């Protein structure tokens, strides 16, 4: 289903289904941020590692780490949050390693994305779905 931002908002929150629809809007915001970071350049997959739990133990503080050897910058996005931008880590030429770890708040189940600007100026992306669940009922 394709819905413009305006149509999605117009549908409102009157039903259960409608609350699921604004996703494309948020994904757009994440895509906008990626475009701004890469300047529209092609994005590969090799050279960046994103480590995040499959299921969040606490959606309010989810440990996430990124690693991209030789990178000059790594942008971290929570694509399903109202404001997807989490952080952009910049590494100077004297940096001993290009690692960063932080904790982020996730509003709901979503993809967390890391995009690194590598030493050769190209970009690489890694993503991981982090599930935010109500829990209980375990084996």
């Amino acid at each position: 289903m394709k819905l413009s931002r305006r149509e999605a908002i117009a549908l409102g929150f009157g039903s259960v289904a409608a609350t699921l629809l604004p996703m494309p809007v948020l994904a757009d915001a994440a895509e906008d941020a990626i475009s701004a970071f890469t300047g529209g350049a092609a994005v590969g997959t090799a050279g960046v590692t994103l480590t995040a739990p499959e299921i969040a133990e606490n959606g309010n503080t989810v440990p996430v780490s990124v690693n991209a050897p030789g990178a000059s910058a790594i942008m971290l996005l929570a694509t399903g949050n109202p404001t997807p931008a989490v952080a952009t880590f910049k590494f100077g030429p004297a940096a001993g390693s290009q690692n960063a770890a932080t904790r982020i708040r996730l509003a709901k189940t979503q993809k967390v994305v890391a995009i690194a600007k590598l030493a050769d100026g190209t970009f690489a992306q890694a993503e991981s779905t982090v599930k935010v669940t109500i829990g209980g009922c375990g084996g």
Partner: protein
Amino acid sequence: MISRREFLQASVAASAILGASGIGNWSRLAAQQVLTQDQLLQFDDFGNVTLIHITDIHAQLKPIWFREPEINIGVGEARGKPPHVTGADFVKMFNLQPASPEAYALTYEDFAALGKTYGKMGGLDRVATVVKAIRAARPDSILLDGGDTWHGSMTSLLTKGQDMVNVMNKLGVEAMTSHWEWTYGTQRVKEIVDTLPFPFLGANIFDAEWDEPAFDPYKMFEKGGVKVAVIGQAFPYMPIANPKWMFPEYSFGIRQERMQEMVDEVRAKGAELVVCLSHNGFDVDRKMAAQVQGIDVILTGHTHDAIPEPVLVGQTILIASGSNGKFVSRVDLDVRDGKMMGFRHKLIPIFSDVITPDAEMAAVIDGEREPFKAQLEEEIGTTESLLYRRGNFNGTWDDLICDAVRSERDAQIAMSPGVRWGPSVMPGEAITREDIHNATSMTYGQVYRTEMTGETINTILEDVADNLFNTDPYYQQGGDMVRVGGLGYHIDVSQKIGARISNMTLLATGEAIDASKSYTVAGWASVNEGTEGPQIWDVLESHIRKIGTVKIEPNTSVVVTGA
């Protein structure tokens, strides 16, 4: 799952091809129509190292009835593969004889009738006999406990796991990992761990604040001149599936990259055989075996599957040893030149009427139970129906529990957790207080009563269904579907979260559940701190006393499609 023929021909290391399981022995047993202890234990010694695995005992010291699942749906790549094969399909896949001892032990069909022929299974005094016999034949063996050991009975609850600790120490466990152990709370776990004569392993247990390893990740053994590393993997979804407020200091998770690091570390230290003692659940382990390089054997646990042959993933063998003391796995391994060259395996069924109890262990068990004997044995009612739980959806125990919860707490809808533990009670038997506890015992058994909107009920069903039917095993928590009473629904397991559940109906009136309307809901095992209400075992006891004789009608309120 590879075919039986491929399996037997499969090469673990290219130079030596030898893999054999104990299934052939079972088939002979069936043919002879006789069971003896010698036959159950018969094993042609092989190689130079032996692993003995037992897991998910759930504090069952005594022999039990335990009906295996009828419905155990696999999704994604696990579809149609063990352990997602049940009943006649299972009998066929593993070339068993219908109605044979092994069919009774491993499947659900004709359970009540076959139980009369073959008797109860398990009992840790019988397990002790088997362990002693294996050790006598193979002094270079390692006994490993996969966890879910300290929880699941009235005596374990009343002693905070101490009865099981004493018994397992007597059995001579050499390392364990954990899950329900944590529901006694951090303080109690640490108190026990300090006294254990063996390590409490968990490579994936981290300090929650600093995200640093908090428990021993592995133990190095030297057996038969072979360096063996046993890496522990605790239940990954501890703070999500169980109440995290009971162990707030710790974080868990699958942490696949950590497992790879540990495998590399033990190999660097000279380990010639790498064993993962896991409480991941079978499908998670099957994926992890493919993702992490260098594990020779995964001793699986958590999902309570008993599979008579090892499942091979690449060069890793997965062993599934069942639950509740019904089985012990013996795995003989030939390790040479730093490599696993071959294996021989037997899933040993603990037929309690065939295996002689170990007298010393029987005395320890009786001693643990003695102070509680009168409470345990009190008969609360009787049942005309077979009471069981295991399966993806409501079992008869769950129907009885949901009836009790709705009736005693005056609610329209009941919810009961889809845990995989809880032995069976046979038709015509008395229901004792011990039976009630075996199906409900836990440290957070309060029965809450609240109001929920139709939308909230739908969200809960969708959420739990996704923990079970997500096609990526790493998102599966290993419980079964939440059980419901007073509510009917349809579920299409092939859909994604948000689209599986439909046709929710209030059974009392037949009307559709309204997303915006509120309903009274009662349930137990809430993971929220401060939940108030009577304990579930008291609620159930009160209900059974009132009705006297339990008779469970067939339940058709959940319609499953997409399997």
